């Protein structure tokens, strides 16, 4: 059965401070598909995530973004979220005074859905967090980065988005949390959510159906995760590609 396209990105370009950050970036994503984006630090992976989500300061200069067939260019981040796409940050924010319960409820409330205590608990259990111990805790410094990551994923599971962008979900987490995050990605897949997985982690990359290698803001290579991984490991570093050399020059200027 043909899978529905949930996201189409065509010739996306982003320029910040006169530097080309994304160059003619094109890809699409099907429902329930995991699409991995890998590349060296500073190559534009997170900028891609922010541009897709319409974050302030990351408005594309040209190109088209379609979510479920509808053009979403220029929409505010909250409108994009309401239409079905959201983002999990590499370093989730801390919220003084905001409880886990409140944080989980916000996404549901913004969609006009009723907040059901049982559903909140189930979402937390799905990310291996014990609801009775965490629902009343504050999302502040008392939670580890890994705990905040999993709580953010629980909030996204509750939203049931069509597309989720996971920006380095593996960074700064221990092995147990990593296994749990892998399971959550499988859960997204089963529920038909398309996943854009930005990662450096070999194990995570292998979960992808398709992958791209990004260098200096553009897609250098497309293919199966194992092929992309092999290329990145053995042919990409040290990099002699002119794209990467140009990137190094720009980085050294800034």
């Amino acid at each position, binding site marked *: 059965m043909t899978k529905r396209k949930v996201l189409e990105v065509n010739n996306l370009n982003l320029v910040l401070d006169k530097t080309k950050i994304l160059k003619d970036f094109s890809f699409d994503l099907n429902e329930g598909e995991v699409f991995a984006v890998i590349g060296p630090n500073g190559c534009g992976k997170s900028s891609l995530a922010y541009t897709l989500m319409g974050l302030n300061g990351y408005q594309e200069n040209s190109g088209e973004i379609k979510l479920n067939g509808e053009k979403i260019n220029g929409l505010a981040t*909250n409108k994009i*979220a309401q239409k079905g796409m959201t983002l999990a*940050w590499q370093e989730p924010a*801390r919220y003084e*005074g*905001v409880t886990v319960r409140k944080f989980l409820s*916000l996404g549901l409330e913004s969609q006009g859905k009723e907040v059901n205590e049982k559903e909140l608990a189930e979402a937390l259990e799905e990310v291996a967090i014990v609801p009775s111990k965490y629902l009343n805790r504050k999302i*502040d410094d008392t939670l580890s980065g890994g705990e905040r990551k999993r709580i953010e994923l629980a909030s996204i599971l509750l939203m049931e988005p069509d597309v989720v962008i996971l920006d380095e979900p593996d960074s700064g987490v221990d092995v147990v949390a990593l296994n749990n995050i892998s399971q959550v990605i499988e859960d997204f897949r089963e529920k038909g959510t398309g996943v854009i997985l930005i990662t450096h982690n070999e194990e995570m990359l292998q979960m992808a159906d398709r992958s791209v290698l990004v260098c200096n803001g553009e897609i250098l290579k497309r293919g199966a995760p194992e092929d992309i991984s092999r290329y990145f490991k053995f042919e990409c570093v040290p990099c002699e590609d002119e794209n990467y050399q140009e990137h190094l020059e720009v980085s050294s200027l800034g």
Partner: protein
Amino acid sequence: MMVDAYKDAGGDDVFSDSDVAHIVLERDKVLGTNSVEGLEVDVKKQKTGMVAVKVTILENYKISNPVHMCFGVLPEKGKQVIDMEVEVEKNASVEIMADCVFPNATEVVHEMEADIIVHEGGSYLYEENHFHGDDGGVKVLAKSNIELKKESEFKTIFNLRKGRIGEIEFDYESVVEDNAVLEMIARMQGYADDKIKIREAGDLVGKGSRGYLETKIALQDQAEAEVLNELTALADGAKGHVDCTEIIKDEAIARAVPIVDVRDPGAKVTHEAAIGSVDSTQLQTLMARGLDEEDATDVIVQGMLNS
């Protein structure tokens, strides 16, 4: 009438409970008092229009239910001046919930001058909750002199529960003796042309004394805030921390001056002050959950004020 206004504003209905001590004052009118064992309350109306309130918690008494004080001005214009004297005797303890209600204020002044002494081993918690109207026509002037004897505890918390600040000016001074603990917390949100001025000062004169001053303020429109938190440590083992966080947007102005003065090598006082706009990652995360910018900002600000 006052209690109704307080209840309408969201306050708890405690004034009919005979086990709960209370004082209800509307301008200079004493609308009700109730005392419990171990607590003495003396309220005297002065010719000047000022009301003198003396509260004594007798030695070794632990007052089990919080004592409720309801102060306020109901008409649009008016003045309330209270001279408060609180004495917590040796090893006594009390929690006071002071609810200040100005629901219709367009030109109201509320002045409070308090002398508070907490004797050895005593404990005093004072939570002040304000319920204002939306006009910002309230001017609150509060001055306190606090004396904490050895091994006593004092904590004050100020919250604006409803309405606009108007104009607030606090000036609190305290002297903290051996192993006594001082804690002052103020949280408020200013809109329009609200003005907030806070001065909290603690002299940690006793060995092992502790002081903690925390101020959290969120401002928008043309609101202004000036916070002066001052902790002076003069004895061995004295420790303190000053923490001021202010979030601003629009044309609001915030100033924070933490003063840390340590005069004994065995003492330590730290401070933290941060003024800025709402954190962009916090804001964008909530927007990525579907909240618009205003709602997301409100969640962050309320979280900060309730932390």
